[in-house]
């Protein structure tokens, strides 16, 4: 068990370090922040002075070494746009993003697992067709389009929900549904598929023969065994939610880390992009670790030796 953890943590560290290198190189290859930040009428000398003041005129490897060393100490430098510590800017937006991502995930699971189960149990019925159609729509509808559609219907036409910003659960509904739709569709399909497999297994038939009641049969016997791929998917989906949050947070002007990332990328605000991406990589790695642990709890056959 200990050896497993040491291996996993070393691997996680490698992933984060790799991400750090990739994001640094890509950022520095795709644009010069000095020309983006300075006004159009700035002269070459003024731009050069800005570049020098920010240290962008040093060789790339020197910049990387100093970035890596400082990042290890939790210092990503000052945001070029805001003039404040980049990590602080990113961290102060985590709660809003977490609130949205977990609500979206909870909503997705609450709809997807019962619906997927129902679809499997009543295979080829109207319920199944409807669930499959919903899953198809959920997976093929672009987040952007869905968000605007929900805003128009439930915000503008019906006036049920506010369309932007935060402030109470009503503000959460539209962005959470938008963000959770894709995940809901995925988990629903997976639940249905997984349940179909399990429903055909011998032990379930035995359980029916023994006279186990329908609810107990589905929840305790079938779902328990269908759980494993679903849990994996939920874990991975949390990562997807973090990346899709960029679009959702922008549409609904949700003050989260995705929106910060979006603006920082447009501005080539290196320190902020680096802080956000590394935070994202860290949380992704952490989620995967937790999923592995959950495996052991859910399936007694899995033991980390």
């Amino acid at each position: 068990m200990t050896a497993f953890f040491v291996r996993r943590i070393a691997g996680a560290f490698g992933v984060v370090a790799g991400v750090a290198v990739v994001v640094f190189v890509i950022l520095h290859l795709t644009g010069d922040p000095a020309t983006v930040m300075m006004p159009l009428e700035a002269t070459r000398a003024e731009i050069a002075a800005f570049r020098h003041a920010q240290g962008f005129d040093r060789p790339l490897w020197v910049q990387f070494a100093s970035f890596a060393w400082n990042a290890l100490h939790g210092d990503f430098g000052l945001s070029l746009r805001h003039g404040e510590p980049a990590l602080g800017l990113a961290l102060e937006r985590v709660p809003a993003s977490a609130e949205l991502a977990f609500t979206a995930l909870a909503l997705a699971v609450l709809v997807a697992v019962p619906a997927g189960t129902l679809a499997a149990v009543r295979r080829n019925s109207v319920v199944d067709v409807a669930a499959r159609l919903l899953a198809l729509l959920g997976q093929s509808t672009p987040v952007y389009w869905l968000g605007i559609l929900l805003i128009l219907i439930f915000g503008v036409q019906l006036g049920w929900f506010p369309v932007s910003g935060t402030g109470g659960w009503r503000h959460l509904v539209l962005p959470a549904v938008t963000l959770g739709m894709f995940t809901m569709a995925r988990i629903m399909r997976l639940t249905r598929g997984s349940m179909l497999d399990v429903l055909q297994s011998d032990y379930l038939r035995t359980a029916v023969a023994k006279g186990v009641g329908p609810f107990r049969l589905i929840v305790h016997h079938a779902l328990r065994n269908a759980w494993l791929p679903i849990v994996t998917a939920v874990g991975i989906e949390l990562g997807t939610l973090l990346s899709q949050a960029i679009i959702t947070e922008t549409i609904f002007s949700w003050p989260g880390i995705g929106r910060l990332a979006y603006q920082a990328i447009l501005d080539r605000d290196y320190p902020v992009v680096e802080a956000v991406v590394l935070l994202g990589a860290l949380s992704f790695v952490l989620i995967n670790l937790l999923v592995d642990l959950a495996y052991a709890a859910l399936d007694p056959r899995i033991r980390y030796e």
Partner: protein
Amino acid sequence: MFQRGLQRRAAPALAAAFAFATLPGTGRAAGADSTVTISQGVDPVTMDPLKRTITPTQNVSLNMFDTLLRHDRDGKLIPWLATSWKHVAPTVWEFKLRRGVTFWNGDPLTSADVKFSVEKIKDPAEGSEQGPRVNTIARVETPDAYTVRYVTFRPTPIIPGYPWVLSIVDAKYWTAHGNEFEAEHPMGSGAYVFKSWRKDEELDLSANPKWWHGKPSIDNAVFKPIPEAASRVAALRTGETDLITNVPPQYQAQIQGGRDTKLESARSVRVLFVAFNTIKPGPQQNRLVRQAFNYAVDVPALIRTVLGGHGYETSTPVPPNFTGYSAKIPFYRHDLAKAKKLLAQAGYPNGRGLELVLNAPVGRYNRDKELAEAIAGQLGETGAKVTTKVQEWTSYVNQTSQRALTPLYMLGWGDNSYDADNTLTSLFQSDARLSTYSNPAYDKLVESARYEVDPGKRQALYDKALAILHDDAPWIFLFQYDDLYGTSKRLRWHARPDETLAVDEMSLGN
């Protein structure tokens, strides 16, 4: 058998899940109080008014900080903190300050605060983007508490230091607290007092009861950023906000037809153009080709079809209400036959052999990509093959800076100096960073005009310079944008050409 059982049990849970997603709310909050909510595309990036030049940040700080002068809606300068201003010597501009003005904390506003504000921007260690605005000022003199003199390096006919956007800060407060504190806790003298700021969510301001100009009409101002244009329009329609900026033309009808919304527009100082990169080899170096392309583009048709009528054709890079504008410069009227004739003269009969790329940014200016495609289509009617290459702004602006975009590139330019100098030097002088044009005779004219103190002589120099630009045609001259805003019907406000949002100019009806 177990299927029915499951169905019975699962149904309520499913119903609950769906119900949560569609639960009706209590409708919008009552709007009886005097609060205006304003939604720009982005949040201000700092409360420090001396750092950045981006419009949304400046729009917020100009409500909290006063400036020496202000432009009225026609671009005419009016007294503000300064009651008068005079060119007292070739290199000296003098401002007389209003007496009795105080910052929110009661500190009196004096010439020392003006000096502090200018010097803060001039200090290279501060890394202010506003640096270029004060680079003609050599030093600031304060002969007494209510007199300020800007001494310039050379004689200049242009009021130095952009006094209509340079915020005056409280020197005493700033010195005591430092940059970082000021960036979160500003101290101004302006119409609206800072209350709180939750980044990317909401900035709250309240009317300054002791403002020298009298307490503003609206009690509270809330700046609530909404990045996505479609969401901004939706928020306006649901009454969540009273004023939205940067309305794309396709939403015009929705806002105009809305029960509680209306459209406001102002002829912007921003011009859009297609430049020829004449310093790189290619057919664009041939003046006849450039002139032909000017005749080939039908600007009124572009404005009508792509911008829904919201634009004004221009014949020069300098907009009409700017000092230095010349009404004598003719337009290139759409004339396809003439365009083809010129191309034939240039050695490209029926456009044969002419293959050019039109570079354009996407998402930077209103309908930029659509405009580029329409222009390429119009140019194609001459027989030339013009294809568009569209790029995201960040990498695009890098390339403009290196003069790398060629042979054709689209760019917008907005300057709130109301003077021709900045535009004509930054975009066309041979050694300017953004210039892809070189003409020594032109360089000499604009350089002389920059320091010519006599208004008549100065205008004559600009008339000549603009005539050269017309003949040489380093641009396809397009149009000035009409800035579009959506507002709630209860808001009384008229849009300004310089894109500023002064809440003290607004009031609320029913």
